[in-house]
């Protein structure tokens, strides 16, 4: 087969003022044959996107190609001028971005986006504009009526399809997909990946799929490059990666995958959860709640209807007649695709929003009727929230100490040295040691996993009885997830708090929860023991969710 792309000893550096340049990609060499579909896998910061940008010459300052060559069809593109590069992009290389769905101009229709490209490159004659763009959107599985639509009228998945079809407009020989589905909903992810696979087969372009998710990559590609700390640590056919990984890092990545449908599921760092232990922890707890206030959360027939945004539109039913109880020490998973009403339930439970109908009680208190600040405050000393995005849940200007001390001062009687001791104790609880050092740090000095630990420590500061965890690991790398999940599970048992675990990730639900509720469009469609439901799903929607998980199988 003919070689299309050859990367020789490529290094990319990020310049930063007053500091040594950061090497994001170091001495990378590989080559691609015509028509090959190759995956590029690595965790965040491994340099995979930087490499993707470099081979398409889209790197922007402060990124700089410091060494090496990128030969595209035998021509070194690292030295091309901007204008040569622009011409080269026609019939050359194209890129689809993770945020590609936001890359469309909101005030121009999809048709105008196509016409812009044709005009810039003159590759299509004016009379063929319409037919050509129609053909392209049909290729990605859209109806030609989207040409008239503005980006705002399309869903995220549709917009990503549009940006793929725009990339195809120049008939590229090489397509780089940079996390094309990461920002999409689970079910949509699955469909868009299917389209990409089919397109690649039909059109025969060479493709690089950049992803943090080894599962997605193995499912689609013929060959996988594994990146770690700016270097390619393994380059092997997909099947060999799966059956006979050579590099330790690849092995480690692989070990963090599991099938939630399997009878026994385990990942490193988390002890497998068997039925006996699960039912034991549920049954064992109510007995010790004698002397304390009852902390059972009861949700009865709760609905939330948002009024219509515009006149003439229908009102939106986010949650429809949901009933469940969460007894002390229990862990309940709430799963569903985006828009299924999971987060709305969390908001109602914590008193941020009030239900349209139905009751929510915590012990003897009516959460749904709380209005006064004082009530909400006392509610929040009992129900705390763990946020999804550790990068936005901490104020960038406050030290860890300040962040953790606030709830201690607000909810407990500890002051001065006692409060400080408690703060350090919390850091110790979440495993951030040496505690003194972490207390003085600012969020930007911490990694994502460490930040999430701080967020968890803050939630524990008021000695809550109920934790609501809203997708606490979805923003973290695969290998960090296990640590955070193990911590949550351990804390729940040790501190006897109940946990509502909201997620779309069925594997993590399987790993740390006893019971599960599957939500679809605000309605509970299936519930039961987690292991039971995931092994023997009955509802079509649950089955669809399970099927959308990329399994560790290669494309036959």
């Amino acid at each position, binding site marked *: 087969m003919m070689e299309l792309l050859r990367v020789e000893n490529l290094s990319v550096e990020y*310049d930063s003022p007053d500091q040594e340049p950061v090497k994001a990609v170091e001495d990378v060499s590989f080559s691609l044959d015509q028509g090959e579909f190759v995956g590029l896998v690595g965790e965040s910061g491994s340099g995979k996107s930087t490499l993707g940008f470099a081979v398409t010459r889209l790197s922007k300052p402060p990124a700089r190609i410091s060494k090496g060559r990128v030969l595209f069809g035998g021509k070194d593109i690292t030295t091309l001028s901007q204008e040569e590069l622009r011409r080269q992009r026609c019939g050359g290389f194209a890129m689809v971005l993770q945020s590609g769905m936001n890359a469309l101009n909101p005030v121009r229709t999809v048709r105008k986006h196509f016409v812009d490209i044709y005009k810039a490159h003159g590759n299509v004659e004016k009379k063929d504009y319409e037919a050509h763009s129609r053909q392209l959107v049909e290729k990605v599985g859209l109806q030609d009526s989207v040409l008239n639509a503005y980006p705002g009228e399309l869903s995220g998945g549709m917009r990503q399809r549009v940006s793929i079809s725009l990339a195809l407009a120049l008939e590229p020989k090489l397509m780089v997909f940079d996390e094309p589905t990461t920002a999409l909903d689970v079910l949509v992810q699955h469909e868009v990946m299917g389209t990409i696979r089919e397109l690649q087969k039909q059109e025969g372009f060479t493709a690089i799929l950049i992803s943090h998710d080894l599962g997605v990559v193995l499912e689609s590609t013929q060959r996988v490059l594994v990146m770690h700390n700016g270097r390619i640590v393994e380059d092997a056919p997909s099947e060999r990666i799966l059956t006979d990984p050579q590099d330790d890092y690849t092995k480690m990545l692989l070990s963090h995958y599991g099938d939630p449908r399997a009878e026994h599921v385990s990942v490193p760092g988390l002890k497998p959860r068997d039925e006996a232990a699960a039912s034991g922890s549920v049954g064992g707890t109510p007995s010790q709640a004698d002397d304390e206030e009852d902390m059972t959360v009861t949700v009865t027939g709760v609905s939330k209807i948002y009024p219509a945004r515009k006149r003439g539109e229908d009102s939106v039913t986010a949650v429809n007649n949901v009933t469940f109880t969460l007894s002390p020490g229990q862990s309940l998973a709430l799963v569903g695709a985006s828009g299924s009403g999971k987060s709305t339930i969390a908001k109602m439970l914590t008193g941020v929003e009030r239900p349209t109908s139905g009751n929510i009680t915590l012990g003897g208190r009516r959460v749904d009727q709380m209005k006064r600040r004082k009530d909400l405050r006392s509610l929040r000393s009992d129900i705390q929230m763990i946020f999804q995005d550790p990068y936005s849940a901490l104020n960038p200007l406050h030290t860890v100490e300040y962040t953790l001390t606030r709830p201690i001062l607000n909810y407990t009687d500890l002051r001065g040295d006692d409060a400080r001791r408690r703060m350090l104790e919390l850091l110790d609880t979440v495993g951030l040691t040496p505690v003194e050092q972490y207390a003085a740090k600012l969020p930007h000095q911490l990694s994502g996993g460490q930040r999430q630990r701080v967020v968890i420590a803050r939630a524990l500061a008021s000695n809550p009885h109920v934790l609501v965890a809203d997708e606490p690991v979805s923003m973290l790398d695969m290998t960090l997830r296990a640590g955070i999940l193990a911590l949550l599970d351990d804390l729940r048992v040790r501190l006897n708090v109940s946990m509502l675990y909201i997620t779309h990730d069925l594997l993590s639900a399987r790993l740390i929860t006893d019971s599960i509720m599957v939500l679809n469009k605000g309605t509970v469609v299936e519930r039961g023991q987690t292991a039971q439901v995931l092994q023997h799903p009955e509802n079509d929607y649950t089955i669809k969710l399970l099927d959308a998980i990329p399994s560790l199988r290669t494309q036959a």
Partner: protein
Amino acid sequence: MTNSIVSTGMQTSAQGDGNDPQGPQVRTARGQNPVLRALEVIGKGFRTVWEVPKARFGLILLALIVLSTLFAPWLSPYDPKAGDFEASIGPSAQHWLGTTSNGQDVLSQLLWGGRVSVMVAMVSGLLSTCIAVLVGLSWGYIRSFAGEFVGFIVNLFLVIPSLPLMIIIAAYLQNGGMSVIILVIVLTGWAWGSRVLRSQTQSLRSRDFVTAAAFSGDSSWRIIFHEIFPNMLSLIINNFFGAATSGALSEAGLEFLGLGDSTTVSWGTMLYWAQNNNVILTGQWALLLAPGLMVALLAVSMTFINFGVDRLSNPRLREGKA
């Protein structure tokens, strides 16, 4: 998870749960007190601004103006009010910028007059920024009927043409001196800033850390001033220089129209007297040009500083000259 374009590579360090992401580079800030940290932040901010050539020009210019007015007693050759020189003479070795029709030295007036003008600019800038911060932050954070009411008032101030309003108020409070001028400028100048700060507050309030602070039991005031306020400091500084610029210009304008106290020496009153005495007809261009130029330079210096402050608030501008 890899996110947006440029930042990916910069995050290389945020790896590995449990190990120090920045290794030895991290300054262990143990026992560091808030004052020191604040100073460090200010120093860093100043450096960022200083690194922008335009802002550096603005800072130097502003420093020169402020210093020359501060040291006016030593720098100025004569008493600015002493009218015992020959009247209406052109620039000469004794009087670099000539004398007024009352026989006062123009250069001395320029140096002394700058004190009032710079002071009015700074004080009115500071006061209107304070009001803008108070109104903008609380208006942006609190969602209730009161917010609608505040919105109504702010919009009212925005749509009223400010120059006629200024003239009317100043004329009504005639002879109140500098404080009236400042009051008038502040009263007509705060609304725009509060509008800008309000929209930024609204975008910050939806961030998770603000919700988290509410979950930590913090009161609204604490959230506004400890969580939101420090995150928009650069915008507030921006607003201050903007307000001070318009303060300097408004002051000169009002005094030029004769609405200030015409016996004090400031750049505005110098312009007023120059115009009254038809200095253009008598060929004394320096009398009109010098104070006008100084007002312009003061405004220019602050506008240029704002180019650098922009970079403070937008890290994307900081990363490199694309």
